[in-house]
Structure formats: C-alpha cells, structure tokens
C-alpha cells in the first residue's frame, strides 16, 4: 500500500554520532503507540551537519517539513504536535514547504549535482536510486553510445579530477582507452584521508550507486571489465553500504556479465584500506591492492599506461565518478553551464572549524570564498573575526582575509599558494594560532610519510622539530629562513604528492602570517593564546573572592590559597589546561 506519510531520518555517520539511532527508536515507538501509518526510512547526509539530528516528514497535510537540532527527548512533543494536534512546533523547523524555516537559503545557494540524492533517498535501496533516474545513464551509454562518444562527452563537460589535482577526466580516460592491453582496470579512490574532509564519506554512505554507475561508465569507455573501490577502513558504514550496493546491483544485472543485456561485463570488488594516508596517492594505492606496502612509485609510467599489475588503469576520486551519470543524462553542455571557463561544474566542500553552519555544501565553481563562508556557511561562530581558511588539508594552504574574494576554482586558488584539494575547508578565527596549525599539519604528514625519499622522511622531521621549538618558546633567529629553505628542497626531492605538498601549510602561513612566527620567535609570545608554553594563567587579585573553585578544579594542584583569600597559581606546576578559568564564576582568571 502506498504510504502518503513518509519520515526520513538522517543516519549517516554524523547523524548517528549526534544521537540519530536514539531518535529513530523514539519515532518508531511513537508511530506504534499512536497507530500512525507512516513509512520510516534512513537517509544519508543532507549536508546540514550543524543541525543534526535531522528528520524530514513528508505528508499531504504539510508537504515536506525538515526538523532539526533534535534529541530523543524532543521527539514525543514534536510528533504529537505534528500528527495529533496538527499544529507543528516551529522552533525545530529548519525548512519546510508550508511552515517557514529560513534555513532553506543555505540549500538555495547550492547546486547539488554530486549530492543530488544524499539526504533524499534510502542509500540501501537500489529502487529509490533507480526512481530518481538511477542507471539511466548507463542504459543510454550501453544502448546509444560508443566508448569514444562517452569519452568525448566527458571531455566536453570540462570535468576535472575532484581528488585535488584537477586533471581533466575525459583526457585521463582517453589515455587509458588508447593503450591496448588484454586487461584494464578501473579504480575508485575512496581513501579520503585528509583530516577535515568528509565529502566522499557522505556520498559513499548516502548515494553509493552514483559511484558504481560512474565506474561502470568509465569501464565501458576505456574497455575494462574489472574494478576496485579502495575505501579506507576508518569508514565502516561506507564500506558496508558499498557492499550492499554492489550486491543489489548484481541482483539487478547491473554488474557481472552481459550487463543490461549487452556484451559489456564488469566485476567490482570493495577493498578496505588498512590505515595509511599515503595510500590515497594513486601509485601507493595500487601497491596496496597488490598486497604490498603502500610506497609510491615513479610516474611516468602513469596508471593509464601501466597501473595495477602493470595494466592500463583509470583511477578517479569518488566525487569525480559521482558527476558522471548526471553529465551523461543531462549532457556535457548543461554541466558546462556551471562553473568558470577552466573549472566547470560544482565542488563539494566540507565546511568545518569556527563556522556557524558547518557541514557539506556543494557550490558552483567560481563562487567566492567569502560567499561560501558567510552566505552559505553563515559566518564565524559568535561572530568573531575571521582569520584564515585552510583549504586542501595537509597538502594545502591557509588563505587570509585579504584574499577572501578569491573565486573557488583550480587556478585562482593555486595562485594564492593554496590548492583546491579534495574539498576540506577549515575556517579559523582569532583564537587559532597559525604556527600551531602549521605544526599540526606537519606532525600529520611526518607521521604518514612512507619513508622512501630522504628529503620527505628526514626533512619533514627537521621542520617539525623547528616548529616544535618555536611553539615552545625556543625559537631562534634564522628559523624562518631554514623552514623556507627546507620546504623548497623537500618539494624538489620528493617522489610523490605527500612530500611535494607537505611544506605547503608552512609556506603559506609564513607568507601570510609571518608576524605571528616572529612574535613566537622574537617576543616569545603566542598572539592567539594557544601555544601552552607561551601563555600564562593568572588570578586577578581584585576579582578573586577566595571561593576555591579553581583550586578544586586544578588537576595538578597548582593553586594555593585559603578560603576567602586571593588564590595564586604556581607557574612551575601549571600545565595550562585552563580548568581554573572554566571553573571560575567571577572572571578572576586571566589568560595572557
């Protein structure tokens, strides 16, 4: 029986982490107790992560209503108001057809191509994917298009690799097509390792079939019959949903032999990564699939010529594949209407950090950073001052306020010294220390270096040592110059993207925030108040009433003082944890 009432709850990893399963249980109980006839489904991530847990109710009465900021405790009241009293509570409405909710604007600024199904369909249902034109592109390709037609279409669309390098996708497919061999492979790089990035995870959890369909079309285009999706093990839900999608696609005859009755065969295996960031680099990824240590190899030869087990291989990122079916169905020209001249289409960004509306957004290329952060993102939390935005994770760079009007496209961003990257966008305010951020990223890349190249292996270690010294107040004159010199050498002396881009965060922070480095080195201060060795917590005499709250809160017993007398912090013992400041109700603890 067709249900005219449908309830969808966002249950991707973010939704679950925010308590989505408890909400689901409460909803189930309510529906049972009140005998409400409704279809209850999970859906993926709609991208408004800051408002999780999200629940959408679709019914004849009110159309579509999206409730957000939900806890299990809110459910009974909300459902009662919606179904029993027919007077929905508006405080929790994020957006709706008939009941207001101004947050729709955030979606209006976006152009959702890659995320077209995320948050809309049940990702474990192939039928729902098909209902929204799923696998129609594959059908069109198998029936009416030759491999060359497909490649031309993708070339015309202007689609560039969304993994970060931005290489023209159609051209990449062409190279693999041109190389003849008895076996060719198609690989999806789902090893999204950049800290701060979760675009791919959302697509894999929310719309896995879009990736499968993209890979199928690529395989047809280049002449491959075997594919792998290399998904990082830290995404268990994504791996699970991918495996379900593969099974369901097989059942429908979209994978395996004689797909859709044609003579095109394609088998797909989901391969789990084992916890190595460097395996996001394509040659290391292929070594990993071959069962070896993930150590990058020389290019040329490029994978299109000699990749997995020496055969021509096409590797693309999750987001790249996700665009393919849409392009085939709607045409390259339509896709090329979005974006700029050299950067067509849209880009999904993971907006995080000190931003009000944190989450996933998909915007047309060419929108300025300012608009992404302030219009779509809602601006800085507590309306504090914007300091920088980090793009591209540990391979990327920091962009300061003066460059906020830079349009988001490959070339404009590269000019600033940063990169587009895979889409991680971490917003920082005046409470973030840029030297600490550089140290943070270098710590990460140093850990993840595979060790093959001397400059990457030892160079990043030396840079990290210098940055550690600087943040500990032991910086020396000449440190900045050494960092710059080492950076240039590491870039030159590294075989793969990890080493070649590891110095970027350091170089861009020195370029735009040199004064902060100088403050740390010359004045031994941390202007943002972050670096522990350079800050001090002090109790202000005039404000302290001697209540002892700080003394009790201190984990290392660094505070002394009698009741009703001014307390003092022993700077030698203090670990700068800040518990005293949090505990004090009289604003008597100051951070210098």
């Amino acid at each position: 029986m067709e249900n005219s009432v449908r309830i969808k709850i966002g249950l991707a990893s973010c939704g679950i982490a925010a308590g989505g399963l408890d909400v689901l249980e409460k909803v189930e109980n309510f529906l049972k107790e009140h005998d409400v006839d409704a279809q209850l489904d999970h859906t993926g991530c709609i991208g408004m992560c800051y408002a999780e847990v999200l629940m959408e109710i679709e019914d004849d009465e009110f159309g579509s209503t999206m409730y957000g900021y939900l806890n299990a405790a809110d459910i009974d009241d909300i459902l009662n108001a919606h179904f029993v009293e027919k007077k929905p509570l508006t405080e929790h409405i994020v957006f709706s057809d008939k009941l207001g909710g101004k947050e729709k604007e955030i979606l209006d600024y976006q152009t959702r191509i890659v995320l077209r199904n995320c948050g809309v369909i049940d990702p474990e249902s192939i039928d729902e994917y098909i209902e929204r034109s799923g696998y129609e592109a594959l059908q069109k390709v198998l029936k009416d298009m030759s491999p060359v037609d497909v490649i031309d279409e993708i070339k015309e669309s202007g689609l560039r690799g969304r993994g970060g390098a931005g290489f023209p996708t159609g051209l990449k497919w062409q190279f693999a097509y041109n190389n003849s061999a008895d076996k060719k492979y198609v690989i999806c790089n789902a090893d999204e390792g950049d800290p701060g990035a979760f675009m791919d995870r959302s697509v894999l959890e929310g719309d896995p079939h879009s990736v499968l369909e993209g890979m199928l079309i690529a395989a047809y285009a280049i002449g491959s019959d075997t594919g792998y999706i290399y998904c990082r093990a830290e995404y268990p839900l994504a791996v699970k949903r991918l495996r379900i999608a593969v099974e369901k696609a097989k059942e429908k005859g979209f994978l395996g032999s004689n797909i859709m009755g044609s003579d095109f065969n394609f088998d797909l295996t989901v391969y789990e990564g084992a916890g190595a960031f460097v395996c996001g680099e394509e040659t290391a990824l292929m070594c990993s699939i071959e069962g070896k240590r993930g150590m990058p190899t020389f290019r040329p030869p490029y994978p299109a010529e000699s990749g997995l087990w020496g055969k021509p291989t096409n590797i693309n990122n999750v987001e790249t594949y996700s665009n393919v079916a849409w392009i085939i169905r709607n045409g390259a020209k339509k896709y090329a209407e979005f974006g700029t001249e050299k950067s067509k289409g849209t880009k999904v960004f993971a907006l995080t950090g000190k931003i009000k509306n944190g989450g996933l957004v998909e915007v047309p290329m060419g929108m300025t950073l300012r608009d992404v952060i302030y219009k779509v993102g809602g601006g800085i939390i507590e309306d504090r001052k914007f300091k920088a935005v980090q793009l591209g994770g540990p391979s990327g760079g920091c962009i300061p306020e003066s460059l906020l009007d830079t349009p988001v496209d490959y070339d404009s961003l590269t000019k600033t010294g940063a990169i587009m990257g895979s889409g991680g966008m971490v917003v920082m305010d005046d409470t973030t220390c840029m030297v600490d951020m550089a140290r943070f990223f270098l710590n990460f890349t140093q850990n993840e270096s595979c060790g093959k190249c001397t400059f990457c292996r030892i160079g990043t270690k030396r840079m990290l040592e210098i940055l550690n010294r600087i943040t500990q107040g032991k910086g020396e004159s000449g440190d900045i110059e050494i960092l710059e010199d080492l950076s240039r050498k590491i870039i030159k002396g590294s075989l793969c993207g990890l080493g070649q881009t590891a110095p970027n965060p350091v170089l861009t922070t020195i370029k735009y925030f040199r004064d902060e480095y100088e403050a740390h080195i010359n004045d031994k201060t941390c202007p943002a108040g972050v670096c522990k060795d350079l800050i001090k917590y002090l109790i202000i005499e005039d404000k302290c009433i001697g209540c002892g709250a700080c003394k009790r809160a201190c984990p290392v017993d660094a505070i002394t003082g009698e009741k009703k007398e001014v307390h003092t912090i022993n700077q030698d013992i203090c670990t700068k944890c800040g518990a005293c400041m949090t505990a004090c109700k009289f604003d008597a603890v100051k951070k210098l």
Partner: protein
Amino acid sequence: MVESDFDKIDAVLHEFEGRKGSLIPILQKTQAQLGFLSKEAMEYISGKTKIPVSEIYGVATFYTQFRMHPIGKNIIRICHGTACHVANARKISEALYEELKVEPGGTTKNLKFTVEEVACLGCCSLAPVIMINDKAYGRLTPSKIKDILAQY
C-alpha cells in the same frame, strides 16, 4: 595459538584462494578473528601462501590498522583531525587517559579498552569526536566521557 586459531586462519585463506594480491584482506580477516597478528599467525600464513615472512611483517608494520599485541575488547579512537584539533581534542584525550589510566595507544589492565589517537574520522561538524568500535560520539566535553564509558 590453539588449534581452533589455526582452523580460523585456514578458513580465511580458503576464502582468498586463487585471488592475487590478497595479503592485506587476509591479514585483516585474521586480525578480526584472532584479535591481533601474532608472530605465529604470520609464520603460519607465510607457510600456507608461500609469501616470505619478511614481506608479511613488512606489510603488517606499514599499515596502522594491524596490531601485533592483544587489544582490548573495545577500541576507542580519538580523532585528532584538523577540525577536532581546533575544537580542543587534546582535552578529550587527556580526560580519557586520566579516566582509563592508560598511555596513548595503550590497553587497560582489564583488557576492556584500547585507546588510540587517529588522524580523522570524517565527522568534522561534530568535533570533537571519538569512536568506540563502530559507534561515533560527537560534540564531546571531558565531562561526558565517564557516562559514555559506563555504557560498555
């Protein structure tokens, strides 16, 4: 290792018979069955697959997922990605180490929990985040830690 352990490894190897490049999934499934990769387990796999032990050891030590020591019943992963770092993940780590009395990467004496710091769990909008086994907990503060641990 006991006989049933060897049987478990045999079952894993059987699943991947004839499939080239399967060393990593073999090690993953072996670890899932036995909890960690012991020297004996790796030597046994080497004998059966004819892959040199040195190569297996090289692969096992390259990837952070593989453990060569027994781990706790529940694995806690503390996210130290960029967004979590900016949201003070350090405080959460300190609270956990304090509460469970372990070092980073260590296991509690009663083998209930293993705690490790990882680079990014991909739930950045809910920073700071930890994962216990497959469940993610977001929007954390040190005060919430005790209650979460009590669930296990």
